[in-house]
């Protein structure tokens, strides 16, 4: 950029300093990263869907697919199953969140911890566990008869397993929504002698309306785009996500796969639009000054809420417990003696130790590079100036990954990076592409965590350091990063945990050398080796749990050192 003053039609621009150039360069790099690894693969799906197999423009794949007799049935299946999961999971999580925020139930932090356990596991774990409970040889199979079912395979199994998987996602959103309540509204209502029920419908529900909508869309997208659970417990019940998998992996029909991928993108994009509107309003609510609500003890209500939390926690533990138990017993249900042979089989005879270490590597790389990209990106978008035309695009790109189902993203990666004429072709089937796909897939929630932390910082830090002639990056390293350290560490942990468990994003992208534990579970289960599959799934849960534990110990020490200013006593 020349040192001459720039003139534009609308007005004048400040001369660019070295700081401005660095900011613009890095921001453009982040945007380019998102364009290359998010937009381009999506565009590749779209292009592939409107080409025939020779690369000419044609709607043949659409036509062929729309003539599939089972298509409407598949779409309807995906939609009603997802809808049913929403109807069960969201209310269940709402009551749980209500108990944690509005009652004086004991052991709240324990309940919360248990409720979040499903996040640590691959989605397949739930499917395996429910087969053990209710499958053809399940202990509780007779229970099915009571509710008029003959088998768990199919829609019932998918629904119950997905309720388990989506519960913590809905819970986290609703916990935030409910904890934002303004205590003064309740005091005002009390002073007007309002009944509890009326308070609930006039204050509580409206105040977490946006949280509820957000939870509904998140759960819906999760279920409609997850293919692991229907694949394991779905039996002959067809859904769109499995359709994509079969077209691509089973029949190598990328064109048809792209068409189904686009279909899958429709509900996701609709939910994304709803969710992003809702988030804007949620934010406005968040920035208002309010007095936090403090629950008062009410004996009957608290007892009821405690009982509910205990019940849900027992159910959640029963699922992960069954998976653990399955991994340690010889042969369900004939020989229940304890053994380590499934672990031995999975890690040594099955030669899947590499799968496990690959998952660890993926987790570590994603934690480091994902956190770096997300935090630097969020900082530049929130706290710097310049490139005003690029900024709306950068915000959109950061929010978009939420709307892209993992399976669709993975399909886009094959279509884009596996093209022989793509200079980035060398990435295909390597560890880096797995890392990149996971970073992109989980970009949005990490980005939002970073943005929330950055918004709490004074907006004028950059202006102050400029006035003191201190380069912005010095202030970034001396102030912004240290102050945001807790959020940065949270993002790193999140990236690690989701990398360990992720399946649908990476199932198209691994090679023999980069096979991951979650993929190995799918393959083991497909081969009927439930014990080793459960063993590997348990190993992932235990690893993630151990890492989270170590992590909280390590961060406690680190935070004590770096965050002394937080705890320093007031006047």
């Amino acid at each position: 950029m020349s040192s001459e003053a720039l003139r534009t039609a609308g007005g004048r621009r400040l001369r660019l300093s070295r700081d401005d150039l660095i900011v613009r360069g890095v921001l453009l790099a982040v945007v380019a990263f998102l364009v290359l690894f998010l937009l381009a693969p999506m565009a590749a799906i779209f292009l592939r869907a409107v080409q025939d197999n020779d690369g000419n423009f044609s709607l043949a794949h659409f036509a062929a697919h729309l003539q599939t007799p089972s298509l409407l049935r598949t779409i309807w299946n995906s939609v009603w199953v997802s809808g049913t999961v929403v109807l069960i999971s969201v209310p269940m999580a709402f009551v749980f969140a209500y108990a944690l925020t509005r009652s004086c139930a004991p052991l709240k932090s324990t309940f919360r911890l248990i409720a979040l356990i499903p996040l640590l596991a691959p989605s397949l774990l739930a499917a395996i566990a429910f087969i053990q409970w209710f499958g053809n040889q399940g202990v509780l199979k007779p229970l099915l008869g009571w509710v008029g079912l003959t088998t768990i395979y199919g829609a019932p199994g998918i629904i119950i397993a997905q309720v388990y998987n989506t519960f913590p996602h809905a819970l986290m959103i609703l916990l935030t929504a409910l904890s934002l309540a303004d205590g003064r509204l309740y005091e005002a209502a009390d002073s007007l002698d309002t009944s509890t029920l009326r308070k609930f419908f006039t204050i509580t529900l409206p105040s977490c309306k946006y949280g509820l909508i957000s939870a509904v869309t998140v759960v819906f997208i999760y279920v409609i785009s997850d293919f692991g659970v229907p694949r394991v417990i779905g039996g002959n019940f067809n859904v769109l996500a499995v359709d994509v998998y079969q077209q691509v992996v089973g029949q190598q029909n990328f064109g048809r796969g792209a068409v189904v991928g686009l279909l899958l993108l429709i509900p996701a994009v609709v939910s994304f639009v709803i969710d992003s509107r809702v988030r804007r309003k949620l934010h406005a609510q968040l920035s208002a000054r309010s007095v936090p609500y403090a629950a008062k003890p009410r004996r009957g209500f608290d007892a009821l809420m405690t009982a509910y939390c205990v019940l849900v926690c027992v159910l959640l533990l029963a699922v992960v417990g069954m998976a653990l138990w399955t991994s340690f017993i010889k042969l369900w249900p004939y020989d229940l003696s304890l053994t380590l042979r499934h672990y031995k089989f999975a890690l040594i005879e099955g030669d899947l130790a590499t799968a496990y270490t690959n998952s660890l590597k993926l987790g570590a790389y994603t934690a480091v590079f994902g956190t770096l990209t997300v935090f630097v990106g969020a900082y530049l978008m929130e706290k710097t100036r310049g490139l005003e035309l690029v900024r709306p695009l950068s915000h959109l790109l950061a929010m978009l990954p939420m709307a892209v189902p993992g399976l669709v993203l993975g399909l886009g990666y094959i279509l884009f990076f596996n093209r022989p004429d793509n200079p980035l072709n060398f990435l295909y089937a390597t560890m880096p592409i797995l890392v990149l796909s996971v970073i992109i897939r989980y970009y949005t929630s990490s980005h939002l965590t970073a943005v929330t932390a950055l918004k709490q910082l004074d907006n004028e830090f950059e202006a102050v350091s400029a006035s003191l002639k201190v380069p912005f990056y010095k202030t970034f390293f001396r102030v912004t990063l240290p102050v945001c350290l807790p959020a940065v560490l949270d993002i790193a942990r999140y990236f690690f945990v989701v990398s360990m468990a992720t399946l649908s994003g990476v199932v198209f992208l691994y090679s023999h050398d980069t096979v991951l534990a979650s993929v190995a579970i799918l393959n083991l289960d497909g081969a009927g080796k439930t014990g080793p599959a459960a063993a590997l799934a348990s190993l992932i849960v235990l690893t993630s749990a151990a890492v989270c534990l170590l992590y909280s110990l390590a961060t406690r020490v680190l935070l004590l050192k770096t965050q002394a200013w937080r705890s320093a006593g007031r006047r």
Partner: protein
Amino acid sequence: MDTALQGALVDEAAGEAVREAAASTTLSIEGVHKRFDNHFVALQHIDLQVRQSEMLCLLGPSGCGKTTLLRIIAGLETQTGGRIVQNGRDISLLPPRERDYGIVFQSYALFPNLTIAQNVAYGLVNRKRPKAEVQARVDELLTLVGLATSGDRYPGQLSGGQQQRIALARALATAPRLLLLDEPLSALDALERIRLRGEIRCLQRQLGVTTIMVTHDQEEAMSMADRIAVINHGLVEQVGSPQDIYERPATPFVADFVGKVNVLPAVALGGGRFRAGRIELQCAGDCSTHAPGEPVRLYLRPEDRATAGALDGAANRVWGRVSKVEFLGGSCMAEMCIDELNGQPLHIYFSLNQLHDLGVRVGARLELALRSDRIRVFDAKGAAQ
């Protein structure tokens, strides 16, 4: 009492003239214009000369553009027209880092994870000065703002007023030639605000640093500023000393915004006489520009009246009934319905002593004289005469 005040004013005026002669322009804002991307025009056309070592207050209601102007001077916003010259150097297009100023924000923007001493040293450390020199300068500044022993503490451990002083020390550490203050006192409670007003003013005089302060608080502006620029709708309405602004408001907006004022609709009769209600009011000074029959508005401050004992020979004598008394501590504001103005209420200011001596209470009837030398005349559309 009035004569003492007059004397003080004469002194002020003389001092003002001396300063004016000695002062040289250090910052010159020439025709600055700002239109935001959403086409909102924040500044229409701003011309301002800031003099060496003076304290200039930008005063106006919220949304008038005063903060935008400050941010343009700091390089945090870019003007869409006009230029800014500091000490002969055109800084209009320089990035903030290449300009010479220190700034204090309303939020203080202290770095929460750095100690007070590290905050103050923030700009010094970057200049690669020897450690001992930095330390000495930090000590000097902390002593200057009266917080010499707080260097090891964190901003969160200090009160709002103390944080404000640290922000000031940090801004002054690098000895900038221009100090920008953006509503520096508005986050403080009333007592702290008044104490800091005096301290900032004292420090500014002591260091002789040219200062521009943005505020919406007219009392703050009047007590601190050498000169006030009253801004409204992105235009400078008037620039002048606090007394000037108060006593000779150039526009109805300034009269309204700075201090309290009574507005009387009237019709010009010529020769400095105006009919308001049933009375002819005499105005001293040059009021001849209003042709007879022209509708005007007369502006009169609540204290610009004479009462019993000073009424002999006074013009504009009226009778009124007290309808409301608002107690203000050492003084009070009465609302009086004036007979000659067909009962129009005027706000009239009384000291507490006058309140007792004249028997001002609701229902009482009093005679007043509206001071002809104080009435300001504006035409009915609002332009100054």
